[in-house]
């Protein structure tokens, strides 16, 4: 079923909406939550919460890209949950990926986190626009979906080493891009 029809089901307040959403994007959403949380059970809970949030928000919202919309909710909920679990001393894939990215983003002492995040977000958007589609996919699978290097390699039918090298080069380009734009966080 295409996204438009699923959204129509939400607008009709039909239970089928959740079923179809789950059919189409459930696996992706679980994978994302699992990468961030490192735990299957919690990932499932998180995705269920995301379905409820989607149900509550559509309508009035009418997302242009339903999969990205659901994943955005899952990602936010997963990181919220992860923050609450900081004492558990886990090292899920998401934190490993974040450390990689953190190394190439220049630091500042500013305390206005929200404003800085917006500036950085816009800059990353522009940077992504300069990348080829496959590089963009590799970057986002690693740092947005928190996929492991091995998973990305399997997905793209490439060797893990190839993906690691590509990521390293993309991070290098990002660092140069941000430096040229004078962006620090």
């Amino acid at each position, binding site marked *: 079923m295409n996204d438009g029809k699923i959204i129509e089901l939400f607008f009709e307040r039909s239970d089928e909406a959740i079923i179809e959403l789950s059919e189409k994007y459930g696996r992706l959403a679980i994978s994302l939550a699992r990468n961030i949380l490192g735990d299957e059970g919690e990932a499932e809970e998180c995705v269920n919460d995301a379905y409820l949030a989607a149900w509550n928000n559509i309508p009035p919202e009418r997302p*242009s890209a339903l999969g*990205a919309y659901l994943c955005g909710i899952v990602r936010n909920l997963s990181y919220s949950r992860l923050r609450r679990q900081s004492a558990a001393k886990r090292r899920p894939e998401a934190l490993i990926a974040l450390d990689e990215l953190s190394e190439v983003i220049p630091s500042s002492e500013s305390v206005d986190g929200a404003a800085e995040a917006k500036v950085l*977000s816009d800059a990353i958007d522009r940077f992504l626009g300069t990348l080829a589609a496959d590089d963009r996919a590799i970057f986002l699978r690693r740092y947005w979906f928190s996929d*492991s290097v091995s998973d990305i390699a399997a997905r793209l039918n490439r060797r893990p080493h190839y993906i690691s090298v590509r990521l390293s080069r993309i991070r290098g380009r990002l660092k140069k891009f941000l430096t040229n734009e004078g962006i620090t966080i």
Partner: protein
Amino acid sequence: MKNEKIIEALGGIDPRYIAEAAEYSPAPSGVRVRPSHRRIALVAACAALMLVTLIFTLPMMMPLSTPESTPESGEIELVGLWSEYLLGGGDKIASEGALVEAWLRNISTEGYERYESRHTIAPEYVGEKLGDVEVYNRLYRYLDDTVSGEEYLDAEIFRIKGVAPAVSFCLRYTEQGEALTTTHYYVFYNKDASYRDLDDLRASLAAETYFSVGDNAVYATPASSETVDLTRYGLDEDLAASLSEIFLTVDGESIDRFDSSLFTDCRSQLQINVSLISDGSPYAHVYVLENGHLVYASKNGWEVFFIGTDRTDEIIRLVRRNGEKQWNNVTGIYAKPE
């Protein structure tokens, strides 16, 4: 704090890019460079060194290569990680992809020393309690061969429903450690387990319950003295069910010694992705060799059985006739032994 800002910044990027990445898949054609036999041999060596290998990196073409080859230096980045099966964390991959450190777990109680663990199993598969043990956990750094975070923890062991405890069981810690929970069931498997024949393997591992066939298979045949022709076939539910039925019923005696010539001396082979989680392998492969052998390859090693050329031909034909052809590549990785 910096990470929080990055999380927030990434959350605000254009949804079109997210949608693109969510659905992105490579073009199906074109030559792909697969891992060379040297690299794979190194992976195998690393795996042996680690003692425990959650890291199941038997790439698609390992059997056609020569496992005895000398590793090249500086290639440990090929080690992969199925992180979703880890609980408690502690495993760390460097940005280059190399496994830097991992928590290793061994039971120190006498009689169980050969059991190791890397992943968990769902509670519904947990059977009766078998006893109490002590587990030695430590954080091992591969790069400089050092151990830290050592701890001895008490735990209870339980049968995995239907599975012979001599092969595998699960364990729940009764005290909290650095990198694990007291609520999950960690599968421990016996590194020394072996099987008389396929019946013995299936019975020992409760294959009726835990065995499943994945959604694709790769057919390989040498294209020249140095290259191999690979074709991947998608397996729909009916075909996967047919293959499961064959694997759950076919007879075959175990071959004692693993011999790479089994692979290199056959004209073609089929690799099928399977799962048999009760032996400690979330992912494994079954290789069907045209010369009548069936190989079950898990992270515990290789189990080779002779099932006869009629049966291997039947399986290969079944997949080639009914599978959905997904891609075809010729790669330069085939190396027949001198």
